[in-house]
């Protein structure tokens, strides 16, 4: 017989224990239905995302990582947005209408967000916005013109993305941004600017709660940098409930959101570094969305409860051919490389059909994109001829650096090595750790390096200014052409759509002739999700907006 040595601690008799257990069990059974219902209710309004990483910083001014841009889309809001249309290839998906709309004011299909009314003066130099009244931030402060002004002045004072965002609309001084009333704010550009309105849609330009930011600022941090790294102060549909970097970020829906509370009350972004594990979690139903999978994983996803959306996107992947480094300072060598690259094979084997051939120097989904200047389908004879013309008939040795964190780049690099060998170019492959890869890109020290990017503003001027203007910080191929610089600037100083089309046709023609890039692919934006999760909408900033989603049947 076992002696109860804990009897003095627990005076309950055996009969009492059995009776108590029965009572608790009975209560649990009775309440079980309610609990299940409550849980099911919670589950249907909770969205779990398996993401490669949690956000590093919540301050988008200094961080453009994947987790951060998803967070910014949830925590903040912009003055304007684009109207939405159904994606022409995926009926389950919606996307922004970024086309040139002659039937709309300023040829843009804009819709009000924080601004309920807007105007661009006839000279194209001043944009004025009338803000919604009564919009509250997650700290309870009302949106005013001062919030918008402070947000843009902050950009002028910090050294992150701000200087570029302000310079493309010719804002250089604080007094170009004016609070004309409590709810009216204006931006004045000394020259006509076709981007004044489009920049207000850009995810890079959300509006901060200036009242809260000023409250937490200090003499050594007058722009609330430390605060905004870990907290949000915005007018978006969610607020940050918890962030444990490396583990998860939890977003809580705001019931007082001015466009109505989002369907998903809680969004959990869970860090799952390997794509195989993210696939597994989705297939087992443990998460609602598995982000950024490998192409083969997308096409291999199966299971009745799983769906994949694949839409044309603003992404491009190309080789930066360093135009200041011999032999790539010779356009004929760059053309030869372009003729030698096996683009069709890359689309088929590496991207599994989830990318389109990059046939231009701006995203093909953008207005004024022109594919007429594409002339670089694989032609090894032509490549050899051009190399001979450039004085490299016997070929040469060079290197290609690629990101160790992106398996697709290694696959492409091996294909390129084999192809270039056929024209006598010996390619040494340098696998660069993800942590240092972008340093190599920005240092512009490599002869050839991969680059994957997207210009978020759907505008040819914004795109070409980013990548081909000689003074741009993102012109990683060191491409310089005075005429191209002048044309890009000309196009950014007129609001005449036809004039802009003519100018950017010319820019695309020159760039496609001088090919500072090795053109590869336009990867599509893919989303692996549970089949009952609906509402996916594609944005040119290539991020999710949690507020778009709802659960079918819930």
């Amino acid at each position, binding site marked *: 017989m076992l002696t109860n040595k804990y009897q003095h601690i627990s005076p309950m008799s055996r009969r009492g224990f059995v009776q108590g257990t029965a009572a608790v069990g009975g209560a649990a059974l009775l309440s079980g239905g309610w609990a299940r219902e409550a849980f099911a209710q919670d589950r249907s309004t909770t969205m779990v995302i398996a993401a490669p990483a949690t956000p590093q910083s919540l301050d988008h001014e200094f961080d453009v990582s994947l987790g951060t841009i998803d967070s910014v889309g949830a925590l903040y809001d912009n003055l304007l947005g684009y109207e939405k249309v159904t994606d022409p290839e995926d009926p389950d998906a919606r996307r922004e209408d970024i086309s040139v709309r002659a039937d709309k004011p300023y040829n843009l299909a804009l819709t009000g967000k924080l601004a309920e009314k807007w105007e661009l003066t006839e000279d194209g130099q001043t944009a004025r916005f009338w803000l919604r009244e009564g919009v509250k931030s997650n700290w309870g402060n009302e949106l005013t013109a001062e919030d918008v002004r402070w947000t843009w002045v902050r950009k002028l004072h910090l050294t992150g993305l701000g200087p570029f965002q302000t310079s493309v609309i010719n804002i250089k001084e604080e007094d170009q941004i004016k609070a004309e009333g409590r709810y009216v704010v204006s931006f004045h550009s000394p020259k006509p600017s076709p981007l004044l309105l489009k920049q207000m849609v850009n995810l890079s330009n959300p509006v901060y709660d200036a009242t809260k930011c000023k409250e937490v600022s200090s003499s050594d941090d007058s722009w609330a940098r430390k605060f905004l790294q870990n907290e949000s102060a915005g007018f978006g549909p969610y607020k940050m409930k918890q962030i444990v970097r490396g583990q998860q970020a939890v977003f809580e829906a705001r019931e007082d959101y001015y466009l109505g509370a989002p369907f998903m009350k809680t969004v959990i972004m869970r860090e799952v570094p390997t794509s195989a594990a993210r*696939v597994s979690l989705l297939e087992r139903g443990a998460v609602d969305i598995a982000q950024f999978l490998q192409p083969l994983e997308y096409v291999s996803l199966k299971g009745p409860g799983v769906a994949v959306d694949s839409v044309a996107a603003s992404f491009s992947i190309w080789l930066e051919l360093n135009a200041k480094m011999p032999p790539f300072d010779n356009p004929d060598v760059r053309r030869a490389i372009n003729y030698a690259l096996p683009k069709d*094979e890359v689309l088929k084997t590496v991207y599994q059909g989830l990318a389109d051939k990059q046939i231009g120097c701006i995203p093909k989904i953008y207005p004024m994109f022109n594919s007429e200047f594409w002339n670089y389908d694989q032609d090894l004879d032509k490549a050899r001829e051009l190399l001979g013309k450039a004085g490299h008939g016997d070929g040469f040795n060079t290197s290609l650096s690629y990101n160790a964190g992106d398996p697709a780049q290694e696959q492409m690099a091996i294909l390129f*090595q*084999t192809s270039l060998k056929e024209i006598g170019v010996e390619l040494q*492959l340098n*696998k660069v750790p993800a942590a240092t890869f972008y340093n190599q890109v920005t240092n512009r020290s490599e002869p050839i390096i991969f680059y994957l990017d997207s210009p978020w503003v759907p505008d040819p001027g914004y795109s070409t200014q980013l990548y081909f203007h000689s003074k741009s910080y993102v012109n990683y191929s060191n491409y310089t052409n005075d005429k191209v610089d002048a044309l890009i600037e000309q196009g950014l100083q007129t609001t005449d759509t036809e004039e802009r089309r003519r100018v950017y046709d010319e820019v695309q023609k020159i760039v496609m002739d001088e090919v500072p890039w090795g053109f590869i692919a336009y990867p599509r934006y893919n989303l692996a999700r549970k089949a009952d999760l609906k509402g996916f909408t594609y944005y040119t900033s290539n991020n999710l907006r949690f507020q778009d989603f709802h659960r079918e049947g819930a």
Partner: protein
Amino acid sequence: MSSNLEWEKESSLSGQATSTAHPIHAAPGARARSRLARARGKTGYFFAAIRQHPEFGLGYVIVVGIVLVGLLAPWIAPYSPVTADPSQYLEPPSWQHPMGTDSSGMDILSRVMFAPRIDLTIAILGTLVSAVIGTLLGAVVGYYQSARGLRAISCDAIVRASDVLQAFPVFVFAIALVAIFGQSIQSIIAAIAFVNIPIYLRLTRSQVISVRNTRYVEAAIVCGVGDLTIIRRHVIPNAIAPVLAQLSVNIGFAIILTAALSFVGAGVRAPAPEWGSMIAMGFQNVTTGQWWPSVFPGLALAVTVFGFALVGASIEFLSDPEQRATIVARKGGARPA
């Protein structure tokens, strides 16, 4: 057979205590006979050990087989190991590609066959460099263990430095070294050598400390033989056996380390055929059903390391006088005193 046993006995009796100074006064003919007898005795031990432990034989077959495959790969591999063929990407095993193809369309069998040229080169060179440096340092440190003054301080410093090196996780340390010196085969060899030096240093030092106190070393000192000569001719040859046994084990470990470095992207450059890099390139495909790009190089890696482990075990076995005496006893010979 009986004559063999005589040689074995002779060798076993002379082998352990014999320094290289042993046959100095023997006539040339006798010296030659003695060497022949020792050689035949060692061969006899070798085959007897394999008969007693057939797995040792398997180890030698694996190692010799892998080395031969690596050497003959340019002639026997059916395809180029570094040429991509997009029209054949991720083909499952078939008669055309017995181990299938990878995501770039490269033939896995050909790459598996070429891989020993890189893996074994790195592993053997890295291990040999570490063994030579570690053994020399260990011999000097062990020899001067009981010295005083600057020598003792220097030896202590070397031992403590090796303690510090050993305190680092080997893999992380190797990654750091490759990151510092750049991604090349030479860097990987240097990294493998560097992380293994303390092993040989400590192994040799412990042996040398006991050899240092033997009569023949003391005799050499009394005769006025210089320290370096004593270390080179009397100490190292008598302290080397455990090092030799460790070599094979370390080569296996170095192959794994090379593969691991490649797996995390710090190893050889793509598309060089190397087992670890092949596993890394293919592991993403395992979850989508294409298991062959990773599994075959993984098997080759496992079998090779297993082979070197068996060879290491056999060397350890053969260098142990007790075990050799067991062989002699089993063959019916007298157990040496």
